[in-house]
């Protein structure tokens, strides 16, 4: 075991997979000599060379599009998009090409590749360094969408994704890159399975569903609730597409009260999908309407970021709402 940050877990996963498999290559802006603007690829160009840690020209469609080509030829590219807010020039390559390749070729071609990208708010980044775009990708068949919340999961999930055969959008919660530390197994074969949720905290009274940095906000909220005698179960979904329905439903059936919390804007967000699944399949167990605690339906602001971002207190208000609900 080693203690590391989320960011160090990213680097460790990349380094181990590159050492294991020569076909794993990284490409992106400023990832070579600069080590990435967050330093996620620090030292990797030195160890593996410019051919496998490729500094690209400034074009996300080029980064993803050439990575698709590399994947089609048999490499395992791991492109980095500097901020998920800058992924949109590559949207066509992701949605029209990468995601549909296997299906449209009758299984002849595939794009085993992992697009890593920091996402989310809380760093005073304004509109274009703060957004949570997971819903755009979760709406695209053929993609796998993964969001880790701990160093252990970051390493284990990223390694599984690199070894997997489907294209992945791997969203890294940059707010907790350096603030969340934890124990991570050193075993290079340590993997965390894609598609499985995790119970971040057990409890019988209320289920709170979250992913990424919000998991930690929800754990804080759970402590606030505990002081009022409410036992909260926090489910960290870890994989947004495909969702671990069984984990969501069994917790919802146990507690009968569900809050879904996310940073992203509310309308048509992943919280809506989680709510719909629970409402469709576990309505008979619910004792209160499902509550969503989310970002507001505005662009992500700069000065008012602290108002916009769901806080532990806002999640707590949602918890109270489901607890106090009276039919």
């Amino acid at each position, binding site marked *: 075991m080693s203690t590391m940050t989320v960011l160090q877990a990213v680097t460790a996963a990349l380094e181990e997979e590159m050492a294991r498999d020569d076909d794993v290559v990284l490409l992106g802006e400023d990832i070579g000599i600069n080590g990435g603007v967050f330093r996620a690829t620090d030292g990797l160009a030195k160890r593996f060379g410019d051919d496998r840690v490729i500094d690209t020209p400034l074009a996300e469609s080029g980064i993803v599009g050439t990575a698709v080509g590399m994947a089609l030829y048999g490499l395992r590219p791991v492109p980095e998009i500097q901020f998920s807010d800058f992924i949109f020039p590559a949207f066509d390559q992701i949605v029209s090409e990468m995601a549909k390749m296997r299906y449209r070729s009758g299984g002849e071609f595939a794009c085993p590749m992992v697009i890593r990208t920091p996402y989310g708010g809380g760093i*005073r980044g304004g509109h274009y360094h703060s957004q949570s775009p997971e819903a755009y990708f979760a709406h695209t068949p053929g993609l796998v969408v993964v969001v880790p919340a701990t160093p252990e999961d970051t390493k284990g999930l990223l390694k599984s994704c690199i070894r997997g055969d489907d294209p992945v959008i791997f969203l890294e919660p940059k707010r907790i890159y350096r603030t969340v530390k934890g124990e991570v197994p050193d075993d290079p074969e340590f993997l965390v399975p894609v598609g499985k949720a995790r119970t971040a905290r057990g409890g019988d009274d209320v289920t709170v569903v979250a992913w990424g940095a919000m998991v930690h906000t929800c754990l804080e909220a759970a402590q606030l609730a505990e002081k009022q005698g409410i036992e909260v179960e926090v489910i960290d979904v870890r994989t947004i597409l495909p969702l671990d329905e069984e984990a969501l439903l069994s917790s919802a059936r146990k507690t009968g009260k569900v809050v879904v919390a996310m940073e992203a804007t509310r309308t048509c967000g992943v919280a809506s999908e989680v709510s719909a699944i629970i409402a469709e399949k576990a309505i008979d167990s619910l004792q209160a309407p499902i509550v969503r605690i989310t970002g507001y339906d505005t662009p992500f602001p700069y000065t008012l970021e602290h108002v916009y971002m769901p806080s532990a207190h806002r999640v707590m208000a949602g918890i109270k709402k489901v607890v106090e609900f009276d039919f």
Partner: protein
Amino acid sequence: MTEQLLSVLGADGAVKRKNRPSLTDEDLLLLHRIMVRTRALDERAMLLQRQGRIGFYVPSFGEEAAYVGSALALDGNDWISQSYRQPGVALLRGITAETMLDNCFGNADDIAKGRQMPVHYSFRKANMLSISSPIGTQIVHATGIAQAMKIRGDGGVCLTYFGDGGTSANDFHTGLNFAGAWKSPCIFACINNQWAISCPLERQTGSKTIAEKSAAYGMPGVLVDGNDVLAVYEATRKAVARARDGDGPTLLEFLSFRMGPHSSSDDPSRYRPGELEAEWKKKDPIKRFEAFLTKESLLDKEQIEAIHAEAEAEMSEAAKVSEKKPAPTIDSLFDDVYADMPPHLADQREELRGEGSDHRQDADAAFPL
């Protein structure tokens, strides 16, 4: 034109060519003053950032001649579609330092209502578009604006600024291609500071110059010494005249150097040698122009020092004023998403109004933006 560097001013400020631009003494002094004020603004803002009083800043050290010289070649009615690194253009167009710092502080007087990060200005009254972070998006807007001017027949032109990194963006290709096909009255002004964060020019493109890319779009390209404010002015003046005459777009490459970090979050010592910075420091465009102004007896050493001191005092005063202003109101979060607020946003505003202040998060700073 695309391989030979156009320059007028020698390193010592001597005018190389007989055909020195026909600028009045007032204009020459204006160019100087704006460049000095911009430098002072950048220095003040970087200091504010280091002191934790503003969250972020993007300085433009070394690039002042490229954007101030080119902007002076436009009329006030011409539009500008810029990136985040040409602060002096706004000063030239009469925007005050206080207004700009209001944006950096994200306060209630900020035109963009504190919604964007620092240096993402919007100055409609100066015909300057709202600045975006995503690289290159403004290039194609410029083509659209220029074409709209042509459709209306009002004789305007649009100039767009972007970096060497920006030439790799899809919108660079699209913007130039459309403008070439339409013969739009558009000026594409690439400020080639030779770096896109850590990416040097030779990794950005296989072309020898940016200017030569113009050939592929059927427009002239001109490689200009971007640290020579007179050459920049002259090249832009010609491109503007050409656009106004209905002869279509031009690609200008202003070859310069990013003397400072990419932004307040960047550490250039990780990726480029200090000697390179020292070498370019000798080519400082303000010093070079001052050598010229001195030679021409337009300013003496004392007057130059006074202009710098005045600019520094102006920026320090503006910062004091801006810093005292309150934050935007919480209600303002929901304004301007649409022309009229739809019911779901009105509901969300109500929801937020009902919450106590402990529902709000404390935000952190110091990230590599």
